């Protein structure tokens, strides 16, 4: 692979990524965001986060063994621990450990 091709691609990918991140800031640079924008700003994050959970699970093969059991248990552990103890690090750490043990040794 030629280095000019790789370098050109990196620059283009950088600009394309940065563009997606700066668009809203350019749109609302000089005016006060409307009530609707404030409403979106307030309520969109929780929706984004929930959808990211499902996005992270998008490649799970639900129809064949082990039917995503490791993922379901992992998410279950995270929810249980977090509702119970409200310690983010603990919930994430234990859930990940449980998941790793499951995919490496059980399924």
């Amino acid at each position, binding site marked *: 692979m030629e280095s000019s091709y790789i370098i050109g691609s990196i620059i283009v*990918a950088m600009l394309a990524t940065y563009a997606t991140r700066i668009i809203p800031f350019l749109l*609302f640079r000089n005016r006060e965001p409307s009530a609707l924008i404030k409403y979106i700003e307030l309520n969109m994050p929780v929706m984004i986060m929930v959808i990211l*959970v499902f996005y992270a699970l998008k490649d799970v093969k639900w129809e064949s063994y082990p039917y995503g059991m490791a993922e379901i248990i992992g998410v279950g552990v995270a929810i249980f621990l977090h509702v119970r103890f409200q310690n983010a690090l603990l919930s994430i750490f234990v859930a990940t450990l449980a998941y790793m043990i499951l995919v490496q040794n059980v399924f």
Partner: protein
Amino acid sequence: MSFLQIVKLTIPVMMGYIPLGMAFGLLLSKLLIPWYYAFFMSVFIFAGSGQFLALTLFASQATILEIGIATFLLNLRHTFYGLSMISAFKDFSWRKHYLIFGLTDETFALLKTTEIAEANRERVYVWITFLNQCYWVIGSVVGAMLGNILPFNYQGIEFSLTALFVVLSIELYKKNRLHKPFFVALIIGLFGMVLFPPQKMLILSLCLAAFVLIVFKRSMENGK
């Protein structure tokens, strides 16, 4: 907020970014691309799925224009993140350009859920973004240089990012005045995961969520 507290906050992202970055570096080295390009890509692009996509396109010899368009479409979801950060970044200095540049899924998640005193906010935000990028850069360089010879079995460690999103969903649910958007997003996410093609699932679900949020504004605000 002390530096140690900030580091502690970013540990879940570290647990995800280092192995994921290593997977990226490993894939890059398998395409026989020199390791320092892993460094440049992670420093200048800093988009997880975007960089994996770039590798796939390298492998199929896509044109530079195609790479630009595909990356733009894949990362279009970040526009929604920026939309949620406009007032948060409004009074920041030039450093906000780095914050905007570094607004990945995970960085956005941390920034949006961390409660910080106003006077400290810019500094803490910059550190969170910078630490996250360091983990990503370290992971990708290590993966590109020695991913093939590491003996440690870290299969499944990327689940820490899933767990992070789960935990932050609960946090935002508790923080949000309105609770309906959370349940609507559960339905949309499930629907999107089952019915949308995997590569387009995120952007399509986010557009649908934004659409429902706006069109049903009144019923969202009714009750609780």
